């Protein structure tokens, strides 16, 4: 029984992280229609910057959240304003834009990864922070992983409230449903899309900070997290914040169950779930 509890709690802790990553991608893909393959690179940037700040200047990783988040937001905002806005204006149909923007984000992936290599090198980096154990209903977990889960839930709730209650949130939801009509009704559509892209990048980089607290990081870690994010987003339903959370927790628990049986197969299990889902219900659990 304790073993089952162990696995489930580990899955929930992992799931919180996945949910946060997926929420960012869900904004970028669900609203801005950019399947951002370089999403994981923003996670990597967050993680590596935090490592550098902690090791070089002794800055607390939780303060690094306040540095990496806004930094990534500005980067994402500028990227959308310069690159994806131009692509959007150029593309004849939404389908063509999706294809083009995905390929462009592959270009970004290569560029960011190479720059990270030049700055930090290929070594695997890690540091120890809040690594003391905490007793959770008989199961022992590192405090750092609990902090990660707490942050993920707090950010998710805050963002959900923002979407549900504020004027800008309403504009974002309108843009997600129908960009053309939203534009006709006076929503500054380019601003909303750039904001969403920026928010997505910020969430990725905060997730990166949190990952670096619990796991080792390196310059090539991005793609794996991108793939997990894509799976969770499709699992939960495009553009749905609660969907991202449900999908994240499901994948986290599945991952931790499979890992407890056969560690080599957890990624395989993710792909199998993903492919089955695409075949059975491509719109996801909460998709329209």
């Amino acid at each position, binding site marked *: 029984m304790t073993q089952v509890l162990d696995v489930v709690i580990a899955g929930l802790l992992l799931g919180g992280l996945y949910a946060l990553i997926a929420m960012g991608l869900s904004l970028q893909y669900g609203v801005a229609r950019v399947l951002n393959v370089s999403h994981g690179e923003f996670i990597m940037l967050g993680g590596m910057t935090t490592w550098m700040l902690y090791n070089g200047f002794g800055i607390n990783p939780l303060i690094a959240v306040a540095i990496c988040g806004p930094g990534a937001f500005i980067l994402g905002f500028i990227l959308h304003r310069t690159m994806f806005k131009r692509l959007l204006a150029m593309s004849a149909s939404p389908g063509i834009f999706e*294809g083009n923007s995905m390929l462009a984000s592959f270009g970004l992936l*290569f*560029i960011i990864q*190479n720059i990270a290599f*030049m700055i930090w090198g290929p070594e695997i980096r890690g540091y120890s922070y809040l690594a003391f154990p905490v007793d959770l209903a008989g199961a022992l977990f590192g405090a750092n992983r609990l902090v990660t889960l707490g942050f993920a839930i707090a950010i998710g709730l805050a963002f959900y409230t923002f979407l549900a209650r504020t004027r800008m949130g309403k504009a974002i939801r309108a843009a997600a449903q129908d960009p053309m009509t939203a534009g006709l009704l006076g929503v500054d559509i380019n601003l909303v899309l750039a904001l969403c892209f920026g928010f997505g990048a910020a969430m990725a980089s905060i997730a990166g900070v949190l990952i670096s607290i619990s796991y080792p990081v390196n310059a090539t870690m991005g793609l794996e997290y991108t793939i997990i994010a894509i799976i969770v987003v499709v699992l939960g339903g495009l553009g749905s914040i609660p969907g991202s959370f449900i999908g994240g927790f499901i994948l986290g628990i599945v991952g931790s169950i499979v890992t407890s049986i056969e560690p*080599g197969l957890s990624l395989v299990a993710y792909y199998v779930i993903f492919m089955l889902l*695409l075949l059975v219900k491509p719109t996801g659990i909460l998709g329209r």
Partner: protein
Amino acid sequence: MNRAGVTSKQLFFLGLLGLSLILLATGPRYAPMYTIILLTAIFMYIILTMSWVIFSGPTGYISLAPAAFFGVGIYTSAILGKALPLLIVVAVGGLASSCLALFAGTLTLRLRGIYFAIFTFGLVELIKHLLLYWEIHFTGTRGRFVIVVDHTTVYYVMPGILVVLLLTAYLIRRSKFGLALQSIGDNEEAAAHIGINVTALKVVTFAISAFFTGSAGAIMATRWTYVDPYIAFNPLFSFMPVLMAIFGGMGRFYGPIIGAIIFGYLEEVLITRFPYYYMLLFGSILVIAILYLPHGLVGLIQRKGDLARKHANS
């Protein structure tokens, strides 16, 4: 434009083609080994790109599966290389990839747009990880050694595959089959309504395109001598064909070929000259090509031609 001008131009191109064919065929007699290896790599990229274009060009489905087909070819060669003659291994590699494409295509070609791209990319990663698991747990090795074939043989087999591929691509493009594919790309529902068996057509074309990618993998493996799942199923082999086709431009038959030649050469130069900035340069070219060359090099050439004609008329 007068008729005589066109014929002399065509003659000139035919002559150029013939000359370069003779040079290529006799190359191994006097050219340095480095050139031969470089040319083999460029031929490989042309094959990967053109076979991607056969399916994705007219239908507009972005397939990121080439790395899976390529890897299947490589592993066919690694497993059967010692037991069978080279040409049969190449053919079996192609057929194995075709079978994978038939299976994956039947399952997934109902998916539209970006979902198909994600699925095919997932396929590459799924096979890679399953294979890695299998190799470590059941065969007890991580990688395999492939039988070595001398460079000249590889150099002659690669263009052989390419010629068959180009003929196939040309015939498909010029036939009813190709028109049907084009109509799927333009409007799939309308194509189904006028009596085209959309699914069967897509799956068959997908399998044809996979055949060439797989056989290129089977012959290329003999040059690498050692493969493991990470080398064989490198996702770069999925992106390269897409990139080369877009860079060259898919509006004309020769567009992707030009793209593959330029990029194949560029890759070699960038890797040897700037090994530390290779990906940075590569990514920048990709972004710039998508932002500023939406119709590829071919589009650029055509625009220049149109402008020149306008000037001549006015």
